[in-house]
């Protein structure tokens, strides 16, 4: 992977972590995201929530985060 792409991915992960910290402890935000009617709507909601908090996050970065979480689940933790 090119250096620029790696850097971009790390920044996206960091932005997602920042948003995650805000969301997991906020019942209102959790409820808002839980009722998203589709995956596309969910991704759009996440991007909007991030922007409202000054966090730079794109739909592609959210989709990458979902894919990474799925891969992580498949890998058996010990």
């Amino acid at each position, binding site marked *: 992977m090119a250096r620029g792409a790696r850097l971009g991915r790390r920044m996206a992960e960091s932005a*997602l*972590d920042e948003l*995650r*910290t805000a*969301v*997991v*402890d906020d019942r209102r935000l*959790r409820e808002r*995201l*839980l009722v*998203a009617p589709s*995956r596309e709507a*969910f*991704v759009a909601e*996440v991007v909007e929530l991030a922007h409202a908090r000054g966090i730079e996050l794109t739909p592609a970065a*959210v989709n990458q*985060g*979902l894919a990474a*979480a*799925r891969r992580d*689940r498949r890998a*058996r*933790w*010990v």
Partner: protein
Amino acid sequence: MGVAAPARLAGWTPIAVRGDGPPIVRWCFTEGVQFEEPFFEQTIDRCLLDPFRLLFWRETGIDALAELAVDAPGLEPAGFIFHLSRCGSTLVSRMLASLTEVLVVSEAAPIDAVLRAAEVEWLRWMVSALGQPRRSGQTRLVVKLDAWAIFALPLVREAFPGVPCVFVYRDPVEVVVSHLSRRGYHTVPGTISPEGLGLPEGMSESLTPEDYIAAVLGSICNAAVAGARAGALTLLNYDSLPAAVEATVAPLFGIEVGPAARVVFARAAGKDAKNPYLPFVPDAGDKQRRASARTREAVDIWCQPAYEELEGLRCSRP
């Protein structure tokens, strides 16, 4: 991510433990989720179909489990189910789970992780975290462990002294036939160290599939013999199911079985335990017919003495 405060963990369930370095616990938001599937991992996989629950995980140190156990202790375990695998143990857990007052946590990877770490406190905390009632009226917690957890029986007894434990087993010929057609995790060489299966180091390299599977099962049976001799296990043969769930397991675990529960039990026993959409079909005869001479020979070498000892111990008890 930073360490989450335990007070904020209400509605979250530990789903994995990462053990390289100080353990990290990953949590999934499970508020409102019923644990209805035959296995814990299936429930979590269903949860993670929801993009919110998949993306917005949290991680903590292992100590968060301790604080949660103080802030919001889960149900005390009423009993533990140990087993040989492919032997009716899921039928036992499904019948118990069909009662509204019973929460069953079945073969949860986070419990396996803390058993492997051999930390008695971690085990208490993890069972407490997983034993959070999932609906009102749930008052009894039953924990079904992985087959190889029998080697951690002393740790379970130390963590939960006095809590009854059962060991479910079956004619090993039928169990080996089942594993030959679809291997269980513990019967694939290399997934669990020989030491973790009570086997000598390097043993798997020289054995045929029949011998390796039979050796693992024989080792599990030997550990169960030791547990039963020490008075730590109540033995249940597949042949005694499903009646033994009402007659033996429920009273042992302090679960009352009235007329309504009998109806629920009968309904649960009529279904395939691992796929409740299918009816139960007896398969002992079929498995015996499919057993090759090589399979029977491997069972004779590795399992039969321990199996016969289990049967002797079971039959000698009232």
